[in-house]
């Protein structure tokens, strides 16, 4: 029999134990909150994506960089539908945050004079580096030192609300199965984005839980269709994690099946160091034309370079050694490389104070929509810090504490344990496999077409209606996997529906709508649950309020333009035809 554990009198409840959540918790405490509780279904500092950060951080250096240029570049890479004011604040905050992380004990690579060293990475501006993955050890320790109470192995399954105001959440413990009730004045979601448990080691625990919590609680989400990155790119046949930024920074090249260094034609200036969106697009176009598999070649690296990689990416390099791709200080083989599962980020639509549409609910890091917070550790930290601070301000302004509604609590409890009550049903892994088959192939969500999106959506609806209701769990571990499968199914539905609604190529390529349409589509796609159904609608980006403007015209997407120039495609009847 499971017990009910109540954690009461919380000022700020933070859900998620990555960098964004940890920063929110630290800042909430520093800003005067009495009781800050951080919950993670794994272990704070050991889960999500942050702890596997590949040693690279994109920080704005006020004395060296041009702020307007960086805002322009980020806005452009987000397809001009960025919340530019938030992007600018992030850049402005990032240097100070870098200093704070340095003081907290994060081991950054520095020059002889103690200054942060900057090296070329992916993108235009050089990056700062840190060693290995002790970043989150240092930050998690800083949170505990600040007085944050951390609850590990507790998976959140519902948000509590009272008259449209968030008042905490519920979940269960993965070891004991106990039911947990957290009563808080303000709640911060920091649960990251998701990759459908696809090809990307270390990132299969981010399963869109925060999106599902927020959606079910009635909050408005946005950006489901246009991720700030469509997918990462990874070794295809091994579970060896992030590091591409460093490999291409050192001069790693991509070769297609014919041995051609194809990035020279897609982006002659940056080549492999082009943005992820361009790289992913190029990979998909090469595959579409039958020139996959694609390989990363680092066999030309000098022993010095390999040793440098071992210093910054000790784990990945050790794994390359274990499968005999690296021998001594030499890459001896090319490595097959591939886009991971698509990134899904139907994040919370947040105000300039990182507040969601539900009062008392905040979000930071990749739990927000992609137009609000860029991917990466620096933005996780800056958005976390702001969300934490604003959440405390909100909590302080609340005169009295709203207690959870007993009826809602009982209902959430019943939903939480439902898969455990079934005697037989469908295992979470089976549901996951079916879901992956719908959304992971590159011509589903990476290279899009209306008919294929509709077919994938049909598959997902079928999973939603006939598989998810039968999910079975044998113990609390399987219960977690069942909730994750259900959450991922919900995320996939938002992803595909939003992708269908956006009838243009902007942050993702559509074969049936190859134009970037700045006349009709300087809009966000919002999604919300209304009367039990998923409702999606476009809402104009208030671009006239922002510093970076864009011409209101309809132009062929630059990657389709490149493909046309290279005689790979023609545009006929308003759609792409492959040559």
């Amino acid at each position, binding site marked *: 029999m499971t017990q009910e554990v109540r954690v009461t009198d919380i000022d700020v409840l933070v859900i998620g134990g990555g960098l964004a959540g940890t920063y929110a918790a630290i800042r909430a405490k520093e800003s005067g909150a009495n009781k800050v509780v951080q919950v993670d279904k794994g272990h704070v500092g*050991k889960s999500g994506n942050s702890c596997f950060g590949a040693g690279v951080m994109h920080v704005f250096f006020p004395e060296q960089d041009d702020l307007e240029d960086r805002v322009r570049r980020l806005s452009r890479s987000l397809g001009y539908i960025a919340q530019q004011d938030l992007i600018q604040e992030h850049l402005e905050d990032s240097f100070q945050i870098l200093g704070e992380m340095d003081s907290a004990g994060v081991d950054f690579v520095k020059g002889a004079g103690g200054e942060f060293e900057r090296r070329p990475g992916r993108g235009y501006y050089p990056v700062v580096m840190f060693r290995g993955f002790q970043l989150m050890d240092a930050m998690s320790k800083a949170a505990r030192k600040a007085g944050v109470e951390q609850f590990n192995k507790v998976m959140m399954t519902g948000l509590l609300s009272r008259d449209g105001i968030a008042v905490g959440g519920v979940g269960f413990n993965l070891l004991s199965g106990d039911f947990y009730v957290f009563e808080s004045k303000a709640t911060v979601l920091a649960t990251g984005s998701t990759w459908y448990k696809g090809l990307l080691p*270390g990132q299969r625990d981010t399963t869109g839980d925060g999106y599902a919590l927020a959606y079910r609680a009635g909050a408005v989400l946005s950006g489901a269709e246009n991720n700030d990155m469509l997918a990462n790119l990874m070794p295809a046949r091994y579970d060896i994690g992030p590091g591409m930024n460093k490999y291409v920074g050192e001069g790693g090249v991509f070769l297609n099946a014919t041995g051609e260094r194809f990035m020279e034609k897609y982006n002659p200036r940056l080549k492999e160091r082009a943005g992820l969106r361009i790289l992913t697009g190029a990979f998909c176009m090469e595959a579409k034309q039958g020139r996959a598999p694609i390989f990363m070649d680092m066999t030309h690296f000098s022993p010095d370079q390999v040793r440098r990689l071992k210093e910054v990416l000790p784990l990945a390099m050790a794994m390359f050694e274990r*499968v005999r791709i690296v021998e001594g200080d030499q890459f001896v083989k090319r490595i097959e490389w*591939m886009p991971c599962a698509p990134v899904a980020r139907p994040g919370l639509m947040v105000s300039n104070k990182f507040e969601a549409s539900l009062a008392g609910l905040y979000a930071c890091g990749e739990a927000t929509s992609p137009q609000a917070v860029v991917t990466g550790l620096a933005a996780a930290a800056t958005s976390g810090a702001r969300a934490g601070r604003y959440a405390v301000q909100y909590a302080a302004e609340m005169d009295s504490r709203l207690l959870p509604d007993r009826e809602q609590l009982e209902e959430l409890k019943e939903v939480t344990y439902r898969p455990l009550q079934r005697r037989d049903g469908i295992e979470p892994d089976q549901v996951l496999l079916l879901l992956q088959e719908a959304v992971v192939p590159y011509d589903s969500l990476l290279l899009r077409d209306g008919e294929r999106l509709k077919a994938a959506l049909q598959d997902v609806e079928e999973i939603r209606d006939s598989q998810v209701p039968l999910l079975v769990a044998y113990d609390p571990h399987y219960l*977690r996997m069942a909730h994750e499968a259900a959450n991922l199914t919900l995320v996939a539905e938002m992803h595909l529906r939003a992708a269908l609604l956006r009838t243009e190529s902007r942050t993702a390529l559509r074969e049936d709508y190859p134009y970037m349409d700045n006349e009709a589509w300087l809009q966000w796609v919002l999604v919300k649950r209304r009367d039990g159904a998923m409702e999606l609608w476009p809402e104009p980006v208030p671009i006239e309020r922002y510093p970076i403007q864009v011409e209101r015209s309809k132009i062929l997407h630059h990657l389709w333009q490149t493909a046309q120039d290279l005689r790979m495609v023609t545009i006929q009847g308003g759609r792409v035809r492959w040559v």
Partner: protein
Amino acid sequence: MGVRKIDVALCNGCGICVDHCPMDVLRLDPETKKAFIQYIRDCQSCFLCETECPQSAIYCLPVHERRMVTAW
């Protein structure tokens, strides 16, 4: 998918791997007080257990357990 073995001769039952596993794959045997792989299917090959084990008792290999659904 990555965790291959836990050497029971080296394991001292500290439980760090159980606590830190992001995918909740490992458990401590209540009788032997040794860690064991309970849910191999859910391992995500992050190698945290291997890197964090103070006894170097855990060995991982970066290969997929089942055929992954991939982009192509």
